[in-house]
C-alpha cells in the first residue's frame, strides 16, 4: 500500500508539470493584457507599455515560464498582478471560505442524500420513492442562482434570520458565529448535489440488489437491515464515494455562481475574476493547486475502495 501511494505521488509530478505548461500557455495565448485591464480604457499605449515592463510581461514567454516555474519549485507562486501580494497569500485568503463551504456542503449532501437514496432504493416504486425522485429531479434541475436568490429573499430579506451575503473570516476574527453566513450558500450548493447523490445511491443499490450474493444473503435468512446495509449499501458505495470525491473538488473551486450570488470570497470567484483581469500568476497558481488537490482526492477515493471492497488490493 505504501509503495502504491509513493508511486501515485511520483506520477503526480509529470501530471502537474504538464498542467503547468498547459495553463501557462493557454492563458498567455488568449488575447488580453493585464496592464491594460488594470490601467483602464483610457490609458495611453506608452503608459501600458511602462507597466508591462515593470511587471516583466515584455520578456519572452519561455523566460516568464522559467521564472515562474522556478519560483513554484521554491514555494513561491509569484505576485498577484491585481492584489499586489503573493499568490499563495491570495489563495490562502480564499481557501478558508472554499474549504468551509465544501466541508459543510458535503456534510449536508451526505446527511441528506445518502439516507434518502437508501430509503428510495428500499421502498423502490413506492409513493415515498416517487416523492423523493420528483423532489430530487426538481432540485437537480433548478439553477443555483435562482435557488440562492430565493432562499436569500425568504430567509434574509423577509424573515431576517440570516445574512444576505458576505463571509467575515473566522480565522481572523475567531468568531464562529460567522458560520451563519454560510448556511444559505451551503443549502444552495447541497440541494442539487444531494439530488444527484440520492439518484446515484438509489440506482447503485438497485443494481447491487440484483446480484447473486444478495440473493444468497436473503436465502440465508438475514434480516432486512443486515442485507440492506452490509450487503447492498456497502457494495454500492464505490460509485457513490467516487461521485462524492468529484463533488468535493467541484465544491472547492467550481462554485463561482453561488459565490457570486452570496458575495463569498472563495476560490471559484477568484479563478473567474482573475481570468477576466488577466491576472496570470493568480490563475496559474490556483489552477496548479486545484489540480494537485484533485489528484489527492482521487488518490484518497481510490484508497477508500480498498476499505469498501476487500477484493481490491493495491500493491
Amino acid at each position, binding site marked *: 500500500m505504501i509503495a502504491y501511494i509513493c508511486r501515485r505521488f511520483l506520477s503526480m509530478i509529470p501530471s502537474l508539470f504538464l498542467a503547468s505548461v498547459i495553463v501557462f500557455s493557454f492563458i498567455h495565448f488568449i488575447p488580453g493584457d493585464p496592464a*491594460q485591464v488594470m490601467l*483602464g*480604457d*483610457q490609458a495611453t*499605449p506608452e503608459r501600458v507599455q511602462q507597466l508591462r515592463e515593470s511587471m516583466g510581461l515584455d520578456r519572452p514567454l519561455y523566460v516568464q515560464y522559467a521564472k515562474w516555474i522556478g519560483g513554484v519549485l521554491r514555494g513561491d507562486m509569484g505576485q498577484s498582478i491585481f492584489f499586489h501580494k503573493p499568490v499563495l497569500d491570495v489563495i490562502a485568503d480564499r481557501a478558508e*471560505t472554499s474549504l468551509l463551504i465544501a466541508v459543510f456542503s458535503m456534510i449536508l449532501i451526505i446527511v441528506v442524500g445518502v439516507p434518502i437514496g437508501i430509503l428510495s432504493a428500499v421502498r423502490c416504486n413506492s409513493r415515498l420513492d416517487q416523492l423523493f425522485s420528483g423532489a430530487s429531479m426538481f432540485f437537480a434541475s433548478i439553477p443555483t442562482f435562482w435557488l440562492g436568490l430565493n432562499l436569500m429573499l425568504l430567509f*434574509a430579506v423577509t424573515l431576517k434570520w440570516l445574512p444576505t*451575503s458576505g463571509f467575515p473570516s473566522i480565522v481572523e476574527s475567531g468568531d464562529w458565529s460567522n458560520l451563519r453566513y454560510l448556511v444559505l450558500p451551503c443549502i444552495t450548493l447541497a440541494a442539487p448535489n444531494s439530488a444527484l447523490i440520492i439518484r446515484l445511491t438509489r440506482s447503485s443499490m438497485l443494481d447491487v440488489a440484483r446480484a447473486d450474493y444478495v440473493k444468497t444473503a436473503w436465502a440465508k435468512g438475514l434480516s432486512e437491515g443486515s442485507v440492506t446495509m452490509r450487503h447492498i449499501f456497502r457494495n454500492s458505495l464505490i460509485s457513490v464515494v467516487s461521485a462524492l470525491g468529484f463533488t468535493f473538488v467541484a465544491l472547492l473551486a467550481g462554485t463561482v455562481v453561488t459565490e457570486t450570488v452570496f458575495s463569498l470570497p472563495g476560490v471559484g470567484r477568484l479563478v473567474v475574476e482573475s481570468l477576466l*483581469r488577466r491576472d496570470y500568476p493568480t490563475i496559474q497558481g490556483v489552477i496548479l493547486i486545484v489540480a494537485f488537490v484533485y489528484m489527492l482526492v482521487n488518490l484518497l477515493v481510490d484508497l477508500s475502495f480498498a476499505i469498501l471492497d476487500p477484493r481490491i488490493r493495491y500493491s
Partner: protein
Amino acid sequence: MKGRKLLVFLAACVCLVLVGGAATAAPAKGGVLRMAVIDEPPTLDQHVVTSDLTTMIAQHIFEGLYTFNAKYAPVPLLVQSDEVKDGGKVVVLHLRDGVKFHNGKVMDAEDVLASLNRWGKFGARGPVLFGNLEKVEATGKLDITMTFKAPFAPWKNLLAFLNGGPVIYPKDVVATAEKKPIEQYIGTGPYKFAERNPGRYIKLVRFDDYASRTEPADGYAGKREALFDEIRFIPVPDVGTRVNGVKAGDYDYAEQILGDLFDSLKADDAVVTTVNQGATQGLMFFNSKTGPLKENFKLRRALQAAMNMEAVLRTAVGPKELWKASGSFMPDSTTWYSKSGVDAFSNGSAEKAKALAKEAGYAGEKITLMASTSYKFHHDSTMVLVKQLKDAGFNIDYQIYDWATLISKRADPAQWDIFFTHHGFVPDPVLYTFMSESYPGWWTTETKRALAKEFSATMDDAARKLVWDKIQALAYEEVPVIKTGDHFTYDIYSPKLDGLSASSLIWPKFWGVGFKATK
C-alpha cells in the same frame, strides 16, 4: 403690550422649533457605513487608473489641488489661491498652509511638485497637461509655478478632475512608487485608508486631523466633514444581492442597480433611490487607420443615419428617467452643451442610410463590429444597433469578446472597423478619448488637429465654447465616433442615512453624510 409679549413668545417658539428641527435634521457622528460596490479596484492610485470605482473610493482618501462645485466649475481644494500671468502662459498656485497628510506630515510644495511630476510622466491623464507644459517648479514652501509653452485653457479642469487625476501624495510615497502603482495610500482626505481585505472589503476610517475648507459644501467643494467612524466598501458583484442586502439591512448603500428595477425600487419604502447625474455615454469608435471606413466619411454618415438611438437606449438602459437621447457630447447640465451637428444624431432611416451608402460607393464589404459582454449595456446596445445596420443593408460582422480581449484586439487596426465602448462624464471636452490621437480610432484629420489646438489655446470661456461647437459639428461630419446617448446609473441606500441628496454629481461621496440622529 400684551400683544407684543405674545408676538415675542411666538417668535421664540418658532426659533426653538427651527433650532430643534435643525438639530435633529443633522446627521449623527459615528457608525460604520457598509457600501456594496460592484467589484474591487486593482489599486487606489488615482494617478494611473481611470476606473470610476477606484475614484469613488479614493476621493475620500486623496485630494487634488482643485475640485468641482455643483455647477461643474473648478474651485480650489488644496490650493488657497492662484495667479494667471503672461496671458495664461504662467500659473502660480499658492497652497493652503497646515494641511496634514494621514501620516502626520504637513503638505508642502515639494509633495505637490513630486505628485504632479509623477502624474505628468506616468499618469493616465497627466500627459494632456504636461504635453503643454514647459516646466513646473516649486517656487516657495507653498508655491508652485507652472509655465506653459503657450496659453493652455483647460489646466484648471485637468487639475480638478480626480479620475486619473493629480491627487497629492507625500513626496516619499511618490519616490518609492514611480511607474508602479503606489502601495501606501496616504492622502489628505477626510477618511484615511485602514485595510484592504481582498474579496471582502476596503476599510477607511475617519481622519481626525483633517484640515477641512471652511466654505459651505457645494458639489465636491467646500466643507468636508467625516461623520462615519468607518466606511467599508464591500464587493458584491451580483446586483440582486446588492438590492437584497440593502433591503435586509446588511448594507447601507449599493451602487449601480439595474434599470429594470428602477420603478419598483422607487416605490419601495425600504430603500431610497439616487440618480448619478454624471452621464455615461455609449460610444462607437470608427477605425480611421485602415479598412472600409478609413476616410470614407460619407459611409460613416450612412451608418449613423441607420441608427435609432431611442430604441437602443430603451433596450440597454430601461426607464425613460435613466436616459436621454441627446446628440450633444457634453450633457445639458454643463455649459458645454451644444446642438451643433445633432440633426444627424438619431435618424433611424434605413432608406437614407442606403442612399448615402450607395453615394459612398459601399458594395457590401464586411464591416467588423466588436463589442463586449463584460458590460451588459455594451452588449444590449450593440444587439439593437447591429439589427438596425443589417436592416439598412450593411454587412456587419458582429464579434463579441470579454473586455480584456476587446481592448487587446482594438490596439491592432487590422482587426476591426467599429468597436463599442463607453465614456464617463468629463468636465472638459479636452478629456474625451476621441480628442486623443493615440486612442484607438485615431481621429487625426488636419481640421480636427487645428480645431483641437485652437480649443486648448483659447483662454476665454465663451470663445472656447464656440470652438467646441465647431469640433462637435466636425464630429458629426467626419464621424470618428458615434454617441448613443446619455444614460444615468442609479444607486439605492437605506432610509437611515442622512445627508445624501436626490442625485450625485459624478461619484457618490460620503463626507457630510451620516446616520440619522435619533431624537
